[in-house]
């Protein structure tokens, strides 16, 4: 994979040589204002639905291994 990544980066490096001084970067193509809504509670997924796909649900939470193996 190292060789493949080098090949790709070499190709991509071409844009590093372009003179783009003063060009505005584009992160998003549609001109939009940020949208805010009123901070009011509204229905969302029920806890049991949100937990249904969890690999290891436990007492209404997502169980994960301990951050330290021998803790």
């Amino acid at each position, binding site marked *: *994979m190292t060789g*493949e*990544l080098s*090949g*790709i*980066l070499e*190709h*991509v*490096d*071409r*844009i*590093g040589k*372009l003179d*783009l001084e003063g*060009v*505005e*970067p*584009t*992160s*998003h*193509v*549609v001109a*939009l204002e*940020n*949208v805010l809504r009123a901070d009011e509670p509204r229905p969302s*997924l029920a806890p049991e*639905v*949100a937990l*249904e*796909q*969890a*690999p*290891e649900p436990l007492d209404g939470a*997502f169980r*994960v*291994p*301990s*951050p*330290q*193996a021998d803790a």
Partner: protein
Amino acid sequence: MSDLLELTVAQAAAKIAAGEISPGEYFEAWRVAAAGDELNAYLWRIEEGNGYEVEDGPLKGIPVAVKDIFCTEGSPTTAGSRILEGYCPPYTATAVRRLDAAGARVLGKTNMDEFAMGSSNENSAYGPVLNPWDRSRVPGGSSGGSAAAVAAGLAPCAIGTDTGGSIRQPASLCGIVGLKPTYGAISRYGMIAFASSLDQCGPLTRDVTDAALLLAALQGRDPCDSTSVGIEGGILAPSREDLKGLRFGVPGELARDSFEPGVREVFEATLARIEGLGGEIAEVALPSAEHGISAYYVIAPAEASSNLARYDGVRYGQRSANAGDLLEMYENTRAEGFGAEVKRRIMLGTYALSSGYYEAYYGQAQKVRTRIAEDFTTAFAAVDFVVTPTSPSVAFGLGEKTDDPLSMYLNDFFTVPMSLAGIPAISIPAGLAEPEGGGPRLPVGFQIAAPAFAEQKLLEAAYALEQAVGFEARPGGEDG
């Protein structure tokens, strides 16, 4: 029964509306057809007896094959990845809900490159899709399952997603119509994210009229996706018969020896047809388009590396069974769950975003993106459309490019600039050509791009051209 499968979606919808065929009978005919999939086009199919109760609407009773990147409540959604094997989302994507509301029903979920990363469908964790025209070749990607299903008569129509060509290129390689709408035309809510500033849903259909019919139902503003704006005035069935007064720009930078001789021949013949319909061919300049691939393969992996951070084995999807502690669980889950191409792009993306390289890669790529968008704006001041071949070659062989990711990426050369500019583009089948190296003739797509939100105009022109081309060839049939 087989007569039902010959109808286009628009024809079937009209017959259902007139009471000439029942939606249940029509859906069942397609369910049986889909069950005969020998191409690995489907990852999941609806079972008998489901899907007949449908809403009244313009798509009443129409089965739709849905790319497995759209969340569908209660049925598996994998995005072609091992890490989402067995995942059943708790909600349905807005695009699918809009189809439902118009009377359509999901026929099945189609195979795809993992997380939509690929141009051949060979990056699916569930095996490649075969091209119905020649099963030793790829269908294109990443919406390869959707394209193959429609081309092979396993679905009347399909939806897919296009980030850098993932609807248009497989449509081209399978001989069908594929439309990438303007960014923002269709909600992305419930569409598993790859590169959020580029991803867009669109239809894959037998003809331009069906593409318009699906787009009409799919488009619209959605409160759940604040980047969705819809198409003002909606979409109507196209009916234009000529191209008089319309100007079609061919990029002057299009090095015509960079694509296969057969593709070049069909492309030139299609330009002549445009002139025959009264359209004018002009040369336009897209000087920055040649850097599209470089910019794309920085921006898309950068966004993907961030989007894919959510697959950590905690809340849904697969979790590694081999983990002593939390960090090991994250690492092993991702190492076991992601395929090689996804890992490659996550590494490229994190590298491009890393401190010290950010400006040289990501910052520079975003500026190239600005330049490409400006190129199109300048071009559209002089012409109505920009046209190119959709793909530099006809369908290539399975395994032919898997060892050389860069040559795979270069396949997207003609489709990536439109994605970066966010503008709509359609691929329509324009003829058949012999592959380089010989073999039976295969479909060639012709790409037409238009200014943002000019979908109606784009569909009208594509429709007029489609009638003149009269592409009747079918996989496994006689050359036509």
